């Protein structure tokens, strides 16, 4: 029997960067193929070719034995190919329903469509607010809308590009179950992820990519994880690739350390009157990593913004090293040595139209490091960037490249590198490992640990519970804009944390 999808000899270059090199793949219906590879390996590019977003320089795609030309996403949809994108492609000014219905034939947009959307939501156990516009949604909800959009389109090939990166742990399981159901119904699913456990759970085969080539397509069940990583990393052991020994997991004893950050009784009420943060109090000691766990959308983002000055709290106080900074400007907090990795790298972490080196500098442009004789030293900027690019293994290793040309994971590394270097007194990170491959994740976690070890307080906010537990000295759990409990990551169970995460507001009091 002919395979359903037959991809042969696909090549794609961007300028000097060879993003795909002679990619071949056979796949049949009812199969789930994971795509694994380092940041910048070409996963998203491959998916984009399938979906008609990029035109390959070479190669052929056959569907059901017949060559097809996927010259546009609309064509792809006609052929029953759908995709969930790594970076959301939603219309901010429209609500969830409109976003899902855009582009569909009129016959599929009637009242039944609305009913079906809600049905899908409950099938997948998705919490989506249909009354607000996408711009007002927390990232997790955006991702759910993105997923719904693809699911709604009755596809025979579905490509998921890091679909779970900002889903709450509680949402991931039902989502994966839903995907399995699709596969069982004969859908061909590509699942791009850096999370080996998810791949293991859901995929039948894994296609490992490296530097734009397919290194192998292996059955998941019989291939040890180590072999997958080895293929992906090019035989080198993980820690060496990233140029640093994997740090011993040492818990810092910070009980006698001074307080780096004290947040006391902070409330934040949004213009609509909703209480986003309620009497929130927490302390981060110098040299300590305080993890914040919680389901996305419970005020974590806002907490980080209040601390860094992007939002002004309605009441309450914030102290940094004993000095009140409650009403200090963002600029003065930057000058105070607060590093901040924001949640949305495209929206605020990066300026995509600037080069990598400028992105590495823009939040500290007045620093002596970047200045000479009162002027910005482009040379210093370049040299510092060259070092960072090497240390963080940012690819392609060209600091003059526009940030927009980098893969998602490499973009994240830029933000992290910049903020880690900047943080002298406090580092606030939100979803720092989002989109990073295994090696990069280790590297970044090590960097953050190193920052803490140098005496900087770290506030580590993430929905990736494992990473939080892995790195934190203490873990505070947030729900409904409050801290519902602070636990010791060594002596706590996932269940306890799960309870705290979903604690109803009245219980919290």
């Amino acid at each position, binding site marked *: 029997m002919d395979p359903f999808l037959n991809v042969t000899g696909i090549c794609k270059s961007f300028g000097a960067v060879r993003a795909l090199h002679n990619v071949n793949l056979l796949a049949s219906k009812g199969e789930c193929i994971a795509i694994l590879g380092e940041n910048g390996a070409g996963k998203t590019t491959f998916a984009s070719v399938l979906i008609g977003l990029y035109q390959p320089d070479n190669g052929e795609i056959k569907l059901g034995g017949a060559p097809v030309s996927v010259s546009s996403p609309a064509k792809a949809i006609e052929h029953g190919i759908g995709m969930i994108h790594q970076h959301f492609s939603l219309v901010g000014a429209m609500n969830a329903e409109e976003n899902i219905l855009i582009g569909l034939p009129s016959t599929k947009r009637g009242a039944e469509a609305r009913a079906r959307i809600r049905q899908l939501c409950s099938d997948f156990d998705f919490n989506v607010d249909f009354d607000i516009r996408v711009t007002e949604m927390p990232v997790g909800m955006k991702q759910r809308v993105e997923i719904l959009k693809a699911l709604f389109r009755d596809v025979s090939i579905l490509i998921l590009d890091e679909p779970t990166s900002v889903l709450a742990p509680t949402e991931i399981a039902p989502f994966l179950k839903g995907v399995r159901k699709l596969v069982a119904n004969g859908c061909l699913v590509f699942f791009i992820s850096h999370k080996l456990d998810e791949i293991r759970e859901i995929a039948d085969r894994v296609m490992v990519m490296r530097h734009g080539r397919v290194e192998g397509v292996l059955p998941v069940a019989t291939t040890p994880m180590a072999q997958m990583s080895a293929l992906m990393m090019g035989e080198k052991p993980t820690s060496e690739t990233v140029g640093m020994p994997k740090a011993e997991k040492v818990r810092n004893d910070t009980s006698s350390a001074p307080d780096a950050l004290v947040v006391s009784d902070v409330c934040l009420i949004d213009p609509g009157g909703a209480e986003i943060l309620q009497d929130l109090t927490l302390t981060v000691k110098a040299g300590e990593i305080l993890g914040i766990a919680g389901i996305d959308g419970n005020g974590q983002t806002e907490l980080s913004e209040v601390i860094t000055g992007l939002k002004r709290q309605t009441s309450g106080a914030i102290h940094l090293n004993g000095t009140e900074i409650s009403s200090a400007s963002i600029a*003065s907090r930057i*000058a105070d040595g607060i590093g901040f990795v*924001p949640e949305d790298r495209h929206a*605020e972490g990066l300026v995509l*139209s*600037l080069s990598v080196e400028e992105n590495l500098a*823009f939040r500290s442009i007045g620093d002596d490091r970047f200045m000479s004789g009162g002027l*910005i030293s482009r040379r210093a900027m370049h040299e510092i960037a060259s070092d960072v690019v090497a240390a963080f293994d940012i690819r392609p290793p060209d600091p003059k490249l526009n940030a927009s040309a980098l893969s998602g994971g490499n973009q994240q590394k830029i933000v992290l590198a910049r903020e880690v270097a900047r943080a002298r007194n406090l580092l606030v990170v939100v979803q720092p490992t989002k989109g990073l491959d295994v090696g990069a994740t280790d590297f970044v976690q090590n960097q953050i640990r190193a920052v803490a070890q140098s005496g900087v307080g770290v506030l580590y906010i993430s929905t990736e519970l494992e990473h939080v537990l892995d790195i934190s000295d203490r873990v505070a759990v947030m729900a409904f804009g409050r801290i519902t409990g602070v636990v010791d990551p060594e002596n706590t169970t996932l269940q306890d944390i799960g309870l705290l995460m979903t604690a109803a507001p009245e219980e919290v009091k």
Partner: protein
Amino acid sequence: MNRFTMQRRIAIALLSALSVGGVLILLDGHNPFEAYKVLFLESFLNYWGFSNTLVKASPMLLAGLAVIIPMRAGVFNIGGEGQIYIGGLFGAVFALAIPNLPGILGVPLIFIAAAAGGAFWAAIPAYLKAYRGTNEVIVTLLMNFIAIHIVSYAVAGPLLAEGAPYPYSEEVSDAYRLPILMPQSDTHAGFVFGLGMTIILYFWLRFTPSGFQLDLVGRNARAAAYAGVDQKKTIIRAMLIGGSLAGLAGAIEVIGLKYRLFHLFSDGYGYDGIVVAFLAALNPIVAPLTALFLAGLSAGAGTMQRAVGVDSSVIEVVEGLVVVFVAAALVTPRTTSISILKLLAKNLRLRRQTQRRKKEA
């Protein structure tokens, strides 16, 4: 499209524009080759033609910069035209009110007055944009019309020169007139002044934190806020600079070219500035080139009419076509923001490489 090199694209573009225009010139009963010869030779390679080009390029350059700086902060200044008028008005009023200063003192003061006028006219949309979120495009556009009428009133009323057959003011005193660069012509020092501004602004944007931060606001306002840049202040600053530059363009027209304030003294230079700015991909250092291109086109077109007798309506068509086609050639696939200079440099490098390779082979 992607496969063409820069030179080829520009060449093809110009050829297409000129052949379409040539047909019209032919229809109009003239020899297109003769007309085009004049168009090119007399805009740059002829003393008088080049002087005309420079005269026009001066306000265009400053008006272009007046678009570039605000645009780099994400503010769309359509108001160059109005700012030119108000700048010219302020400069002229100052020059006429205090006619007896030595030039060395008077000219800078006139410039300051004109810059203040332009900045004042830009401050209104800037304030509305920064603090009330009002769309700046519409405010600046409407204010252009208002400014033109204000100057029209001023020169027909309070400033009207004695015995003038047309609304214009008295002449400014000799000491205040900009020096003439090319003897016997009207080429005043305005373009040199514009070049100076260009260099200052280029370095400011590229090598000072405040310039860099202004650029950030335009590229990604949220990221700029996250970098501690005060967006409101930046918008105001950018517009004040833009307005000052346009105001200076007005002053240059008054004390460099006409020596009086005239009704309708700017012929849409504020709008030409938009073309100059975007053809330069918003890079100040490229703006002199694009200003010269546009000015040369307009000067050459004029001579084409006078020397060959081509109908001015046909000339407008040719001008429009050339701008369209050249703009099309300058758009590089997928890298709209790369500046012309960069592209040229890249091209040269490529060519040298291939030549070297050929030699080696």
